[in-house]
């Protein structure tokens, strides 16, 4: 029996050694060939041979998967009528948010439009507070007062509902960076629909004139609501629309492409050369919002094709597996962990109470003595504190 126990013990030790060796066997970093960016008014393009470490890969994977599952959960909750109003989902575009964040620092600044849940997450918001904001609860990132389109966190200025308005705002943040001399920059995102807005061209002009550290990024997902780019823009070369501003057209489905282009643009800005423009060619699987099935202006085949050939998460997964940077089990573990995180967040978001009515009128003014707010009738006098 003691011999048998010895054998069993050795087998256990051997198994431990084998699994330890399996983890140590992973490639710690690999070089990848990525698509070359189209350039406008530039002499150089971002690198096409880029290094990704195993850690980076796992982090990008986890972040993109979190965004993906969070958005799908939001879809579910919306159909159950637990989320109401507008809900613009980001699934398909994950490589943009994750790639951009990988190319800048958390101390930099970012602003986007209403398809903002992914960015709220990459900028530091938690899934829990994002989902609770969607369900309008007091634990929401904006205490339930903003909703899907108005989420804010440090160095993240929303979440903006008016198409195009966020672009001048972002240039203003960049102006503050230059004014304060802090070597920070501001990324201002907008879609292919917004790209035709006049205020964006006004912003290009001032940003270039004053050499603001601004990166303007057009997330071109081919459709402005139900209108395809060909039907909306006389020129669909969005990366050239900044005219005198140098531009890059980037594969927005490849997180490494987005990262490299962002780093390239960030270096340009930080060197004091002024703004840069990036067009990320990407795709949204959902319609414009939850009220749009998304199949009246594009075919299901098209959606399936993008999903099959260019899904950002699948692409990263394939890269990591084929370069022995991770195992299928490891990635599955991440999937399971993400699913749990989302489930817990959804649980919180559906059980957390709604904001208290006493706080209805708060947050009108900052740093202000309390004021009285008229209710719906002359006898109802409500209180507002900062």
């Amino acid at each position, binding site marked *: 029996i003691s011999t048998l126990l010895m054998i069993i013990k050795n087998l256990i030790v051997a198994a431990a050694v084998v699994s330890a060796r399996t983890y140590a066997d992973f490639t710690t970093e690999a070089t990848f060939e990525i698509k070359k960016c189209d350039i406008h008014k530039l002499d150089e393009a971002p690198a096409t041979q880029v290094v990704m470490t195993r850690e980076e890969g796992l982090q990008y994977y986890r972040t993109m998967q979190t965004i993906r599952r969070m958005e799908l959960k939001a879809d579910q909750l919306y159909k159950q009528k637990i989320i109401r109003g507008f809900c613009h989902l980001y699934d398909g575009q994950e490589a943009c948010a994750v790639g951009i964040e990988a190319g800048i620092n958390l101390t930099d600044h970012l602003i986007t439009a209403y398809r903002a849940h992914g960015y709220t997450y990459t900028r530091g918001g938690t899934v829990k507070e994002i989902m609770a904001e969607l369900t309008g609860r007091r634990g929401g990132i*904006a205490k339930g007062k903003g909703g899907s389109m108005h989420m804010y966190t440090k160095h993240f200025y929303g979440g903006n509902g008016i198409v195009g*308005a966020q672009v001048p*705002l972002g240039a*203003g943040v960049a102006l503050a960076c230059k*004014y304060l001399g802090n070597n920070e920059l501001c990324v201002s995102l907008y879609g292919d629909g917004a790209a035709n807005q006049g*205020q964006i061209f006004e912003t290009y002009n001032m940003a270039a004139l004053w050499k603001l550290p601004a990166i303007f990024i057009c997330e071109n997902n081919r459709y402005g609501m139900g209108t395809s780019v060909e039907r909306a823009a006389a020129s669909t070369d969005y990366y050239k629309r900044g005219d005198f501003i140098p531009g890059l057209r980037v594969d927005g489905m490849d997180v490494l492409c987005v990262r490299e282009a962002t780093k390239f643009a960030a270096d340009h800005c930080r060197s004091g050369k002024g703004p840069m423009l990036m067009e990320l060619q990407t795709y949204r699987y959902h319609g414009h919002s939850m009220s749009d099935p998304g199949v009246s202006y594009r075919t299901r085949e098209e959606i399936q094709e993008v999903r099959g050939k260019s899904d950002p998460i699948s692409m990263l997964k394939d890269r990591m597996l084929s370069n022995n940077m991770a195992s299928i089990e490891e990635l599955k573990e991440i999937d399971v962990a993400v699913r749990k995180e989302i489930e817990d967040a959804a649980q919180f978001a559906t059980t957390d109470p709604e904001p208290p009515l006493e706080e209805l009128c708060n947050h009108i003014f900052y740093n*202000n003595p309390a004021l009285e707010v008229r209710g719906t009738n002359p006898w109802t006098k409500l209180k507002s504190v900062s």
Partner: protein
Amino acid sequence: RLKNIVLGWNDLLCSKPMMVRDALNQAMDEELERDERVFLLGEEVAQYDGAYKVSRGLWKKYGDKRIIDTPITEMGFAGIAVGAAMAGLRPICEFMTFNFSMQAIDQIINSAAKTYYMSAGFQAVPIVFRGPNGASAGVAAQHSQCFAAWYAHCPGLKVVSPWNAEDAKGLLKSAIRDDNPVVFLENELMYGVPFEMSEESQSKDFTIPIGKAKVERQGTHVSLVSHSRYVSHCLDAAVVLAKEGIECEVINLRTIRPLDVECIETSVMKTNHLVTVEGGWPQFGVGAEICARIMEGPAFNYLDAPATRVTGVDIPMPYAKILEDNSLPQIKDIIFSVKKTLNV
């Protein structure tokens, strides 16, 4: 000798008269000096010294970084100003006139006014939008609109409308120091009008609180409530009416939002009669709001007659002088309305 002594004391107690534009200039100069985060942007504010010379000398003193000439792109530069405020600066965004602010109104309302609320107190927007508002002289329909009612309609904004030079200085300093979006409505016709400045207004820390009206003239028979240029008209009307034994109490609102209803109520409860005077159009205007608020409050029971509004004529502003003059409240209109209200 006695005359010289009196004049000497007078000089000590009051300074030389100061024009409204210089009071505004001084306010901005002092605040620019006090806080490095304050800066001014707008069309012609720097090298031209300001379209109406309100920012004269500031660019020479503070340079390109803090006094910024913008292209003629209101929506763009107002948005940039709001973004800068979100990121920690304290911009003063000048509109050459508030008529042009309509191009930028989305940034003022949706990006500035509503953000602190939408973010549940996370994101403040300490910005001042300033410039001339209302009618000028002979500039016709597109350049003469009063925006007091438009902006005062919106929660999240403070709307200030100074009358004299002291108002201009004290209120602009308060507006710049306020951590919230303030719409500061000046008046082009008042820029060149000189006013005595009190001793205390000489101080670099002189501010006038936003949200408090001022009783410019005590009276017992009727409360005349006005803002901006029409305060002068009310005071002039009061002088004429006094000769006929009618004593008007003249209230200078100073702030449109938040409205100092208490001041108006206290006055109405004393005089029992209310006449509001404004340059803007009557429908859904400042006077309309005052009347509604009086109805809803304790002062209603003290009214001996319905409240009266004296306003601009409900038309786009015409050009010809005779037409323009008859499109705006004149002193005789105020006198007429007071007498009708008092039934004399």
